């Protein structure tokens, strides 16, 4: 009984790392969650791996998903004018196709 339980719970660091990453893209099964929690409890390397992944994920989320208006620079006036000019030129070039696509 005890042997079965250990076998059930024991996973390698490689498996744990895989579960940590896959947990971001799919729901883990109950068994996988238990295995992972048990492993991370005892393994400082995988705990560090998990923490780093969470920290990075948080960082990516803030940058790519929850961009708040104040967080990043906007188009400068200069860039805005440049962009207007370039769009106008490109649009004109497209209407008079002497250039290639």
């Amino acid at each position: 009984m005890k042997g079965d339980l250990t076998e059930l719970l024991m996973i390698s660091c490689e498996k744990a790392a895989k579960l940590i990453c896959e947990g971001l893209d799919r729901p883990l099964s109950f068994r996988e969650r238990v295995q992972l929690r048990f492993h991370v409890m005892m393994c400082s390397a995988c705990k560090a791996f998990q923490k780093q992944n969470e920290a990075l994920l948080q960082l990516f989320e803030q940058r790519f998903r929850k961009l708040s208006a104040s967080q990043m620079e906007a188009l400068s006036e200069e860039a805005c004018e440049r962009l207007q000019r370039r769009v106008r030129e490109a649009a004109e070039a497209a209407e008079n196709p002497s250039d290639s696509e």
Partner: protein
Amino acid sequence: MQESGAHPETPKGSAPDPLVWIAEHGDVLYRYALARVGRPDVAEDLLQETFVAALRSKDGFQGRSSERTWLTGILRHKIMDYFRSRSRGLPEAQPMSHEDALDEFFDERGRWIEPPQAQAARPDALLERDDFWAVFDECLDTLSPRHREAFVRRVMEDEDTSTVCKALKVTATNFWVMMYRARTQMRRCLMLKWFQAGEPEG
């Protein structure tokens, strides 16, 4: 995705005016692009391409979604093209060998060869640091083109698994493996190049 669906007739209003687009959506689209590509000049180029493409598809915007959503959709395609085209200039061998080497994170018994160490990193402090995002960009380049596309779509564009699988023509299981590799490699690269080398902060 946004492209499909009905085309309810909506008043077209005046002819599309890129200057109005730039005034109304320029900042938002620019931030969107800059957050992903990390370089102001590239972000500006992508915006230009987006507006020109929008102009050319005169009847592209049908009022199905907001004008901004429509423009963002075009921009997203331009961003994906950018990441795809960038991979053409890279030597194939290097990212591939990185990829092969991934399994060498673990020994034959599945134990870490270089165990990750706890860091005292404060991620929020990194958000506004351009040099961090330059390193991020370098790390993105070490991924193989397929892994990079998977990573960009899933993490940066927040596409769901089934959408990415369809786009990349892979099964979900393959996709999870790809993402596992991409994430592990990105983590390692960032740790090596930034957290350990760059920041002496304890």
